[in-house]
């Protein structure tokens, strides 16, 4: 492949959803439902998001959200008339249905995902099993002991790699004491017990806190019925939940930091950046369009042109914002032969500083809009892509007509908007620079 990951970053930044009618309603349990009916293929994708991501991890137990999500698939408790299922029985049951149900955590969310065929008998059984697993995960202590050992060993392995080291050092320097910068380590894992998982689960995984996004060959009536089954075993708290305490914001950097870590590697890994913006930033669109020009737009960005195309310094070079509930990092990254690290850094710094100072040219802006507006339909042309967009609207409380306005919001961005937004959001003189394995 000619490059990696860049479009994934771009897509993650584009809250695109367009031309697709979203049905939204609230269940008596308080769960908020967002549905797009897509009848073409006999399948359904469902995602349930909770405010139980890593930002709520206790510092000394960093990784709790992530391991809790993973352990939620490791067995189901017995219920009256239903025997317990151990991890293998549960996996087999899903395999026998040709369906899947699992959980994962990001910085903000803990997400549960169900994918199933919609043949009535199969879907009914899949939802019933998901309902059991969702409400009554077993969290067996012996299996957590094993998983802890496995994760600890894989962390140790990952830490031998320059890319991992660079990411850890960068995260700590950009986020400081904020939970976005917490690092799961052998020590934090050692402090996590299944009781912590059970407590997190009981506190956060409640219907009144659920944002449910669904795309597939199901009607609203079917969704009401299947969510009834899915949530049946979790107490509904009368449909209302007390708000969680707010999480502090990411602090701006007071001074630049230049961190050099030696490594015996074939390449130096370079990361440069700072706290960026929140998802509700009013400049979201100017920053999205601007970053396409700076380092997001495939082979045509300024960074790719200067670092890769003109100088052959790196296979992959990119920039991205991570707009989240808090100010996720703005990140520039590349990898290059160790003796070229200083040159690649100088070129990248110059590209970023000039872009922040001068903004894009009108020609660059027109080209960016042409790509983003013209390619809009590519953001929504499968159920899976649509689901990501629906859950983005649900999670971030975006208006349901967001889709109707997306291309117009891109179209109205001006050169001055981009320049102003970047000048406000980024401070090139106060960024963190991390180079792992550079020479000298």
């Amino acid at each position, binding site marked *: 492949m000619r490059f990696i990951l860049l479009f994934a970053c771009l897509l993650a930044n584009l809250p695109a959803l367009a031309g697709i009618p979203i049905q939204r309603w609230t269940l008596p349990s308080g769960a908020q439902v967002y549905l797009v009916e897509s009848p073409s*293929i006999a399948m359904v994708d469902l995602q349930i998001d909770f405010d139980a991501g890593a930002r709520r991890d206790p510092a000394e137990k960093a990784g709790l959200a992530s391991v809790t999500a993973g352990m939620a698939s490791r067995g189901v408790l017995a219920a009256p008339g239903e025997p317990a299922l151990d991890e*293998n029985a549960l996996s087999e049951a899903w*395999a026998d249905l040709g369906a899947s149900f699992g959980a994962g955590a990001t910085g903000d969310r803990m997400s549960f995902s169900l994918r199933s065929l919609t043949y009535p008998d199969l879907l009914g059984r899949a939802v019933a099993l998901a309902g059991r697993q969702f409400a009554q995960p077993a969290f067996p202590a012996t299996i957590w002991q094993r998983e802890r050992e496995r994760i600890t060993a894989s962390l140790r392995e990952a830490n031998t*790699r320059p890319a991992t080291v660079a990411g850890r050092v960068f995260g700590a320097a950009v986020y400081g004491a904020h939970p976005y910068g917490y690092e799961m380590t052998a020590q934090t894992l050692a402090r996590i017990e299944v009781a912590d998982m059970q407590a997190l689960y009981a506190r956060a995984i409640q219907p009144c806190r659920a944002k449910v996004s669904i795309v597939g060959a199901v009607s609203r009536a079917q969704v009401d019925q299947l969510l009834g089954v899915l949530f049946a075993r979790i107490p509904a708290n009368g449909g209302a939940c007390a708000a969680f305490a707010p999480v502090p914001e990411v602090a701006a950097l007071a001074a630049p930091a230049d961190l050099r870590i030696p490594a015996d590697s074939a390449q130096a890994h370079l990361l440069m950046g700072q706290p960026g913006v929140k998802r509700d930033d009013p400049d979201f669109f100017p920053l999205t369009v601007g970053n396409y020009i700076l380092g997001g737009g495939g082979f045509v960005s300024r960074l790719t042109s200067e670092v890769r195309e003109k100088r052959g310094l790196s296979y992959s070079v990119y920039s991205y914002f991570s707009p989240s509930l808090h100010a996720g990092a703005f990140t520039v990254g590349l990898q290059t032969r160790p003796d070229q690290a200083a040159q690649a850094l100088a070129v990248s710094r110059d590209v970023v500083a000039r872009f922040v100072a001068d903004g894009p040219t009108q020609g660059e802006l027109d080209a960016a809009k042409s790509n983003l507006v013209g390619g809009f339909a590519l953001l929504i042309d499968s159920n899976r892509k649509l689901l990501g967009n629906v859950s983005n609207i649900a999670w971030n409380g975006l208006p349901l007509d967001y*889709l109707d306005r997306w291309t117009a919001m891109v179209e109205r961005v001006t050169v001055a908007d981009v320049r102003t937004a970047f000048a406000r959001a980024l401070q090139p003189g106060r960024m963190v620079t991390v180079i792992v394995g550079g020479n000298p």
Partner: protein
Amino acid sequence: MKRFLFLVGLWVCWAAQAQPVAPIAQFRLANGLTVIVKPDRRAPTAVHMLWVRVGAMDEVDGSSGVAHVLEHMMFKGTDTLAPGEFSRRVAALGGRENAFTARDFTGYYQQIPANRLEDVMKLEADRFANNRWADIEFTREIEVVKEERRLRTDDNPRALLYESLNAAVFVASPYRRPIVGWMNDLEAMTPADVREFHRRWYVPANAALVVAGDVDVDQVRQWADKYYGAIVARELPGRKPRVEPAQAGVRRLDVKAAAEQAYVSLAFKVPALAADGLEARTATPADDDALALTVLAAVLDGYGGARLDRALTQGDDRVADSAGAYNGLWGRGPQVFVLDGVPAKGKTAEQVERALRAQIERVARDGVSQAELDRVKTQWVASEVYKLDSVFNQARSLGNYWAIGLPLDAGERLVARLRGVQPAQVQAVAARYFGDDQLTVATLRPQPPDPNRRARIPPPGGRH
């Protein structure tokens, strides 16, 4: 108002389609180029792919990596397009693009709004026929490719292990060389090597155009004739078979690299499924065995808690932190069945190797249950439905089938054939193919990083 109409139109497209499965069209242009069209009108987008039946396996010693370097250079201009202009035009169309090189094929693609299909067909046909660039473009881009190799292989211990494993499994087969190329071959590569490879292999009879999405077959045929049909037919060079000689005895190798965890991979030579093997009445016993080996891999590792998980990665005295099984099944070259694993703390690669082979022996001795077989078959059937969600993946499958000489419905036929595999066949292949004689074992021996070692010296002649 215009935008409103567009949005309504999109929704109509989306909702009104009760039947996404349209027939696949395939035809050849007069110059020998194959065209495959798969309409799928759920959304107003299309994917346009050009597949060339040439990959790393068509290279020769001393020029490893040239197929992949050519893939990079295809973005560097034509008689009428400056370097980088191809990408700028695709971006201006609202498109996304990339390319990929494998052992068996090279592919180029654009994902575009469906009403831009003609534009990319014109661009891609031009690039296929008229790729031109100055030597300086090569001089820069070869450095990018070396960085790609450093990123993917040189700093990745398990990738290094697989590079060495392939070089040991295969002696005569071109599968022995890494796709990205040996570093020294990249250092020695010349612009002429790349141009010659293009001239030799990028001929219409060696390529297939795959178009999927919101497209009309007759319209695609017309544009294909107009743009691709104008490319002059040339003779496809002969290919030497380079058949891998029979292996007679186990091969073992170690790879030392900076790592924490050991790792072991066992590659057993096995038969590949041929095109005729997709029909029961024309299949050979070797075809049937290839299918049974794929079922065996799924029974061992096809779902969470399958046999390898249970036997190796669970329990108080587990031997491994992870374990896997994979059958190559098909391709232009010889295939292997791979078992691999990461030892748990305090366990050795040798213990993992024994435990993996013990699971094969168990199948050979006791067979597999009907429930296990039904389970993996259910998953394949379901995955055929899930596959329909991605137009891109459908196009990629079609191109892949064409490139390795299979019919376009190979996916459905494969599932139908897999569903017919019986427990006794799985047991039989477990007994037949897993002795020492066809086995190559590669073991990663982790080395601590040496804090006193000076940073690596750049290779001589490198650019600054």
